[in-house]
């Protein structure tokens, strides 16, 4: 793992490899001792968080996607990352000199470590941070806002399927008169969808968020800011239909699967469940794409899934069948069928 170009970091590739080894072993004690030693040596806490802990976390994600690591191992590694981060936090005290900010992962978003890293970076930059955790229900977030009166809200979303709920949270924050900074790849390349959903700012990385929040933020009077163009068109009827008929859509697809794919007749329960879970993912990403009116939400998912399935030895045929089964049930929905057809065209031929 090399440092990003142009950044002078004391976190060498060698050090990163050692840390990844500790994370891979689930060696909590070793990992916390390592970050402790680095802090003792005067390495800035920000570099440890971003380059060491964050860098390893990216590698963990890649290893999982490449099927080199199991889900369990990925979780164990993340747990070690959280402990290492907590160790950095415990060793660095910063007097708050900026405002107060509430930081939460969108409802249903369970990837909490990136947000937790941002919480620490903001704290190191002088913010008073309330980190509400992973998957924060909208109601909890709003209750917190009314009870603590922060100056701004930061929302993290790693997967675009959470966008409808992110939109609900952003809208509620706006109604409470609070500016929202959105973060995470769930909001699309360059944060395109964040703006569409009404967020006031977007940051790709934790460090970007810190920079963005340090300059001219939060805006003084949020209720007067205009809503973005097209906000009114969000969540069209195809989205509503798709969400409401999701159970039926999946059940029908599963019923028809053995007709067009005979091996499915011999699926055991685990295989059948995994397949219907995959159908569910197709439906969810399609719904999100319809919600924000961005076919790319769906097409990016297809590209990503093809790669993940590929590394697990699953041929694109399986995905093709799934898409076709869903498509055939959505004949009357032009936007959805267009997205599915485009997706089918992008699948590699076998």
């Amino acid at each position: 793992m090399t440092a990003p170009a142009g950044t002078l970091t004391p976190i060498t590739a060698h050090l990163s490899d050692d840390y990844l080894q500790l994370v891979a072993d689930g060696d909590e004690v070793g990992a916390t001792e390592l970050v402790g030693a680095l802090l003792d040596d005067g390495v800035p806490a920000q570099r440890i968080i971003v380059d060491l802990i964050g860098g390893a976390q990216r590698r963990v994600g890649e290893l999982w996607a490449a099927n080199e690591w199991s889900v369990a191992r990925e979780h164990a590694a993340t747990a070690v990352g959280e402990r290492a981060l907590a160790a950095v936090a415990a060793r660095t005290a910063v007097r708050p000199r900026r405002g107060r900010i509430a930081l939460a992962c969108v409802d249903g978003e369970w990837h909490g470590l990136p947000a937790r890293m941002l919480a620490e970076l903001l704290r190191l930059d002088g913010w008073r941070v309330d980190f509400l955790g992973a998957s924060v229900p909208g109601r909890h977030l709003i209750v917190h806002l009314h009870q603590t009166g922060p100056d701004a809200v930061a929302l993290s979303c790693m997967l675009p399927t959470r966008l409808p709920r992110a939109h609900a949270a952003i809208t509620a924050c706006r109604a409470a008169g609070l500016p929202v900074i959105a973060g995470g790849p769930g909001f699309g390349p360059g944060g395109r969808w964040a703006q569409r959903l009404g967020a006031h700012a977007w940051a790709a990385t934790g460090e970007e968020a810190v920079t963005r929040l340090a300059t001219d933020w939060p805006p003084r009077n949020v209720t007067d800011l205009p809503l973005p163009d097209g906000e009114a068109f969000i969540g069209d009827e195809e989205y509503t239909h798709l969400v409401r008929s999701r159970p039926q859509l999946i059940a029908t697809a599963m019923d028809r699967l053995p007709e067009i794919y005979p091996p499915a007749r011999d699926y055991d329960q685990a295989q059948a469940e995994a397949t219907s879970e995959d159908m569910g993912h197709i439906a969810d990403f399609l719904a999100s794409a319809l919600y924000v009116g961005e076919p790319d939400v769906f097409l990016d998912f297809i590209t990503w899934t093809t790669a993940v399935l590929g590394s697990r030895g699953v041929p694109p045929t399986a995905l093709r069948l799934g898409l076709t089964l869903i498509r055939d049930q959505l004949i009357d929905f032009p936007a959805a069928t267009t997205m599915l057809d485009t997706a089918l065209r992008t699948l590699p031929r076998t």
Partner: protein
Amino acid sequence: MTAASTPAIAPAPALLTAVFEAASEAMVLCATADDTVVLANEAARSLLPGMQPGGPVAAPLPADGADSFQTEHEGRRLYGMRRPVGDGHYAWYLRDRTESAALELERSRTAFLAEAGRRLSASLHVRRCVRTTVELAAAHLADAAMVVLPPHRRHSEWVRLLPGLPAEEGTLREPTLGEVPGLIEALGGFPPIPSRWLDPAQAPAWLVPAGFGPVGALLVIPLPGNAEPAGALILARCGPSAVFSTEDETLARMFAARAGAAISAATLYREQVDTAAVLQADLLPPELPQTDGFELSGSYQASSDALRVGGDFYDVFAPAGAGADTVIALGDVCGTGPEAAVLTGKVRQTLRALCLVRTEPAAMLTVLNEALLQSARQPRFVTMVVGSVRRTDHGRVRLDLASGGHPAPLVLRTDGRVEEVPTSGTLIGVLPRTVVRPATVELAPGELCLLYSDGLTEARGGPSGTEQFGEARLHQALAECRGMPGAATVDRIRQLVADWVRGGNSDDIAMLAVRAPSRTPLSLRGGGAPTPSPYVAAARRADRRPRNRS
């Protein structure tokens, strides 16, 4: 159709003059050469009584050659436009805009009050409401605005906005409040004193610091609240000739009514929240203690969106003296919401007392059953698992578990097998006699015992949206957590169930895991570790370097 040529007619000058005179628009015909008035019709004379034919073109008509003007004249708002007419003459066309100007003013006030209502209603937080109040007041009503809240323990909080500065906050001692004319009265709920009776010269220096010019006019208005004032709004206009007109004062009072309502609602909300927080504190899941020899991890999710407490609970009681075991408990009171939560508090308190007398888990359930039967106002039952935990030799952990009508705890073995702990018993708090069959479990290093509530297995969702998560899926999920730390295991299961219900409303869910730590970091990757970096080596050395080394 071709038009016939218009017959050339030349009306008599008297006729033209009469038409000019009868027009409803005010017109003044002037000679360019010497800027004298040639003709002024009746409408013009009524607006400008001094304007007579033969006289000079005088104020309010501009003499600087401007093409239009807008001015106040004798209490009217006049608008004029100049047009050349032929050679040597020009005409002024005048309009009386007095009424439309008043309408415009009224409109801007209505818009201001609407904006104030919208922004003030956005938050239920006192500090934010107060900030919004000074921001609105400073933008629309005065140069500087300050809100002073009623004194609490002899101190008053304030927020102030001065021109060109961000909002400032602070507190004042109660005696200093008397230095601002009219402030004591406003905070006492008396009607506002008209601005002209307040001497701005008496305003203390701390109110508007020097550098913002002398305060020319001061207005102190109560912010009406719930039976008592929510605070006071101080408005200041700078400059020697500044005043607050009667209209200004009326508008400020209308604004103060809205701001006061918002601040007092927020105050009421804060009081309720503070009370609820105190009452809830003992019902929240406990901080898990650091224990020697085993890991404890818990997770709690209340079904209710707004509440953080519910009918499920878990608790951990530290050993009552040397040689005693740590006691763990996880249970489910029938029902959800605050009523159920209150009963969980009673159950937890009873268990705490029972721990002190060092009772076996099974006996604890029997005593608890009697206590509940005697105390319950209405029949409410509890299902629960109680266990005592101690570490034994070679990093092993021993649990004595007793269940009262609760789902059996699960044990995850090192080889990935998932076993149910064979303990069972009757519900607690229903029957006068309980039957409890305790069981003992030994955990080898890396093994884990999970206590959970049925909200977990009964969570409905999945592809059909109505299927229960079920025990088979829980077993499967737990088996996949082999080798994971306890906290990660609990998080993973919680996440799987949340994904299963996909945001749907579910029951309360509680989990508590006890894990015997793996003895040595188990290399999941296999193979020898590469040469460790100097940092790892240093971190592993017993003689750690002192922290102050730079």
